[in-house]
């Protein structure tokens, strides 16, 4: 069995992740931040330590500017729907996931109804999925307030130039929101150097935590008074008031958090920190380049993206001539024990950019736990399928 669906969610997890979650459920259990008894304080410490670990990984100066939530989609919704106002102009790319596109399309002013909404510019990318920062700068208008970029495509893995765009955003007084779903823990992210004002991350991919965890870093340039939380409710603070607290992280963390999940996320992030993102990245570059080269060497197979592992994450999309992705996926699973994802990967814009809309692709998403031997075996399986399809 080979698990190559890591771009959707990583598996297996480091053993420390489930150990931390079992420890929380059996040995802690209490609600963090809602009381002051010993177990409540233990629980609060666990959540706080996860906040610090995430902050260390992304070089966040103040971990209390990280708010936790269910996943990166919720984080991106908070940044977009919580911050943008009617009349604001937003710039994004042609490589976005629907976690960005759907909130933006939902807020976009309907063309038939004047300007009662958010204006949106989608900057095209190359067929390989690369973005020219100059095209972002050219799209800036007087009412532009934010640039939203996918750090790396979930379809073909291509890395977008967030640092270059971040500097452009600073020069023009704009905020940069980065969708770090595919890069957090797999590619270096430094919110100060890059520079990133809002970073959405998810816990269950390359941070190796469980599903149901994620969050948003909210930088100093973000006007917190303008940010509207997605939900309001109990925070364990300012309980005498019926109004939502106005400070981070409480204002954006109403209701009991997924503390058991955050215990696991903390263990996952510490695993990444101990191993080191650079070492993880080096391994992934090696196995990804081997996969790209192996697939390209097969007659009838088309590999998408830049074909250079140093310019992408460990996610590779391809198609076999004469075989729909759905059939390839089924046969890879049933005949070869290879688990992967096929189709449109929740990113129609990216598929239009790389020319695979509406059929989609077969996607192999690798993780630090995958090996060269698995890549070799998978390439052999694709070669067999391609030989039969021809």
């Amino acid at each position, binding site marked *: 069995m080979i698990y190559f669906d890591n771009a959707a969610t990583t598996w297996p997890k480091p053993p420390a992740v489930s150990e931390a979650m079992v420890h929380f459920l059996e040995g802690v259990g209490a609600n963090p931040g809602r009381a002051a008894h010993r177990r409540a304080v233990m629980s609060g410490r666990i959540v706080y330590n996860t906040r610090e670990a995430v902050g260390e990984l992304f070089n966040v100066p103040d971990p209390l500017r990280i708010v936790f939530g269910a996943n990166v989609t919720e984080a991106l919704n908070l940044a977009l729907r919580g911050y943008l106002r009617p009349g604001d102009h937003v710039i994004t790319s042609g490589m976005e996931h629907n976690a960005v596109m759907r909130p933006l399309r939902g807020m976009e002013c309907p063309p038939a109804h004047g300007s009662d909404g958010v204006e949106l510019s989608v900057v095209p990318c190359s067929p390989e999925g690369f973005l020219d920062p100059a095209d972002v700068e050219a799209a800036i208008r007087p009412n532009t307030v934010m640039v939203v970029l996918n750090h790396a495509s979930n379809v073909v893995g291509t890395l977008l130039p967030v640092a270059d765009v971040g500097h452009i955003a600073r020069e023009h007084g704009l905020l940069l929101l980065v969708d770090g779903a595919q890069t957090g823990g797999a590619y270096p992210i430094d919110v100060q150097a890059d520079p990133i004002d809002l970073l959405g991350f998810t816990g269950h991919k390359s941070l190796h935590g469980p599903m149901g965890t994620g969050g948003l870093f909210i930088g100093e340039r973000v006007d917190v008074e303008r940010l509207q939380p997605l939900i309001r409710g109990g925070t*364990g603070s300012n309980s005498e008031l019926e109004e939502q607290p106005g400070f981070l992280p409480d204002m954006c963390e109403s209701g009991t958090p997924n503390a058991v999940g955050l215990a696991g996320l903390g263990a996952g992030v510490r695993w990444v920190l101990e191993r080191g993102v650079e070492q993880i990245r080096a391994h992934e570059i090696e196995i990804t380049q081997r996969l790209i080269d192996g697939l390209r060497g097969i007659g009838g197979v088309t590999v998408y993206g830049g074909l250079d592992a140093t310019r992408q994450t460990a996610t590779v999309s391809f198609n076999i001539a004469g075989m729909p992705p759905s059939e390839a996926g089924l046969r890879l699973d049933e005949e070869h024990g290879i688990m992967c994802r096929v189709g449109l990967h929740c990113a129609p814009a990216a598929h239009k950019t790389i020319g695979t809309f509406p059929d989609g692709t077969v996607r192999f998403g690798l993780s630090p736990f995958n090996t060269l031997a698995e890549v070799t075996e998978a390439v052999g399986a694709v070669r067999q399928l391609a030989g039969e399809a021809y």
Partner: protein
Amino acid sequence: MGEGDAVILVYSTSYALRAEKVLGNAGTDCKLIPVPRHLSSDCGVCVRIARADRKTATEALHQAGVEIEGVHDI
């Protein structure tokens, strides 16, 4: 600790947990306790220290950027 304690009030549990860590690193004994009712109706926690550590504790927290709502003898 016991007689001669003080509590440091902060704005949220997250700040209290950070304060606990900062004071621990500074070698100052502290404990997170419920906020005494006569000081605030908040349901959160505050940081109990010895009154004798009041100055060093508040300085350590100030240096670490932990905003203090108030310090009270209890």
